[in-house]
């Protein structure tokens, strides 16, 4: 899509974060921005607080394991603006050696659980997260199952009942 047909959101992000934006497109009518890891917290705050955008919802936070691509992971955020009825997707590439992104917990309360889930499933850490532990799986579980190198049927030994006294 040519730059002139971009939505208000993309134009504003281009203005403010032009140097840190890696890619930008609106395929299938869905605004998508790829930004560098360092800019995500600032961008999220900008999206939330800018009076022309007001993306007050963090609709989804997840990751994708691209496996062969470098950098390997991509953390994907979906934002929704109730007031302007607009959506934007923000993606942050994260390398395998240092999978760490700034946490959004100071901005949205739901980020706490969504980030815990992403840590649980992909092993991506979130800096400044108050309580980063597994959400869906149990503490004894080894590895991160949604990574492409974790086989779907690889079971781990059953954990016995816990001693209530311990």
């Amino acid at each position, binding site marked *: 899509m040519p730059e002139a047909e971009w939505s208000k959101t993309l134009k504003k992000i281009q203005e403010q974060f032009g140097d840190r934006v890696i890619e930008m497109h609106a*395929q*299938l009518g*869905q605004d*998508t921005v790829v930004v560098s890891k360092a800019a995500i917290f600032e961008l999220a705050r900008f999206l939330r607080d800018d009076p022309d955008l007001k993306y*007050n*919802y*963090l*609709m*989804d936070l*997840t990751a*994708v*394991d691209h496996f062969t691509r470098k950098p390997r992971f991509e953390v*994907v955020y*979906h934002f929704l603006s*109730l007031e302007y*009825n607009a*959506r934007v*997707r923000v993606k942050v590439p994260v390398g395998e050696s240092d999978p760490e992104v700034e946490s959004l917990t100071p901005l*949205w*309360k*739901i980020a*706490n*659980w*969504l980030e815990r889930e992403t840590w649980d*499933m992909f092993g991506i850490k979130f800096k400044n997260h108050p309580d980063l532990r*597994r*959400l*869906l*799986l*149990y503490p004894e579980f080894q590895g991160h*199952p*949604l990574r492409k190198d974790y086989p*779907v049927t690889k079971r781990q030994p059953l954990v016995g009942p816990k001693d209530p006294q311990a």
Partner: protein
Amino acid sequence: MSDSTTITTKTPEETKQEVEKSNKNMMLNVGPSHPAMHGVIQISVELEGEVIRKADIEIGYLHRAFEKHSESGTYTQVFPYTDRLNYVSPAINNFGYAGAVEKLMGLEIPERCKYIRVIMSEIARVADHLTCIGASAMELGAFSVFLYMMKAREWLYELTENVTGARITISYGRIGGVKADLPKEFTEQCRQALKKTREVLEEVDGLLTRNRIFMDRMRGVGVISAEDAISFGITGPFLRSTGVAYDVRKAWPYLVYDRMNFDVPVGTTGDNFDRYLVRMEEMQQSMRIIEQALDQIPEGPTNIDHEGRVIEPDLMADLGKFGKTAGLLKNETLLEPTLEGTGKRVHLQIRANDKDAWIPPKEQVYSNIEALMNHFKIIMLGHGIRPPKGEVYNMVEGGNGELGFYIVSDGTDRPWRVRCNGPCMRPMAALAGIITGGQMADIIATFGSVNMIAGELDR
């Protein structure tokens, strides 16, 4: 010791602190095997008397690797797993996922199919709310309400079974359409079922809405503000009870919801009682939508004269095997009612006419080579439906709020990543804050109003 020891008097504040220190708070573990926790939620609470001082919620007891399974199957094979996400309203999950893949492929589905999807979604929504209100009322002691609600849900299940062939796990959605057309007698049955459901709702309304015990336990309990709800990303009835009228069907219309005339009920205080009222009203609105859709739905070509041209499918297969294909194309197969969608007569009405996502009608598969090859290409591993490279996020209004599917395609026949963004997780994340400071017994009422569906929460 000298006599000059001064007698120290304690201020009331100090006494209180001392008493508090000596009475240690009690830790209580609720669940996961607890009748009100639906078997899969663990709430560890720190109690001071009856008042909750701290709460920690542990989820994940029903984690079944939905997202991992979706990556290992083909696009069509994801449908049975989506049924089991929100197993109270599986139709909505089916269509939400199908809609995402269709958006990715740029498929346009036929009018009649859109109406069928709307009707089935709304039936599922009514069943969802019936279960929620019935179960939460039962947990507060109103057992007869539960029995009435289940009675009504049973009629809707029978309706669903007539259309899809299954009561709960229906797998009715298909990429580019639905499995089968509505049966002939559906309209009449549906109107009957809705009429009876309305009667039940009236009865329940009389039993609950002005019931002193019910009101005392629901009113002013489990309150959440609109700001908090938005910060927690809550959608659906839970958000609407706080006064924010966000509904995906209105804000981001899909299928044919923009042609339907319906209201979005909102509450004022965001407490349990408001959530109950919102759900009750939503059922009425859903039934309104179903009735409008039944009036507007375009007719399929069910009035084609096929006398003497209808033959059994196995006979048709046999004829095909022996090469007696001349004239077969003019014939139609007689199919078991729930499989009618695979027959020529209704095929085009409920499926997108696109070779990339479309299994040809059985008559053509058995009689000509192009259709046979097309069928083979769709079914065989390594061929199948192949959306182009890209990513898409599609949302529908589920029973509990916005249900989103984020799909990443790498151009092969298997999804690279399917993310289900279920609405249940958000109120569950907020629950610890809501119940803190309240009474222990209020957990039951508040938890019931969340309508936690574990399949969708833990995936």
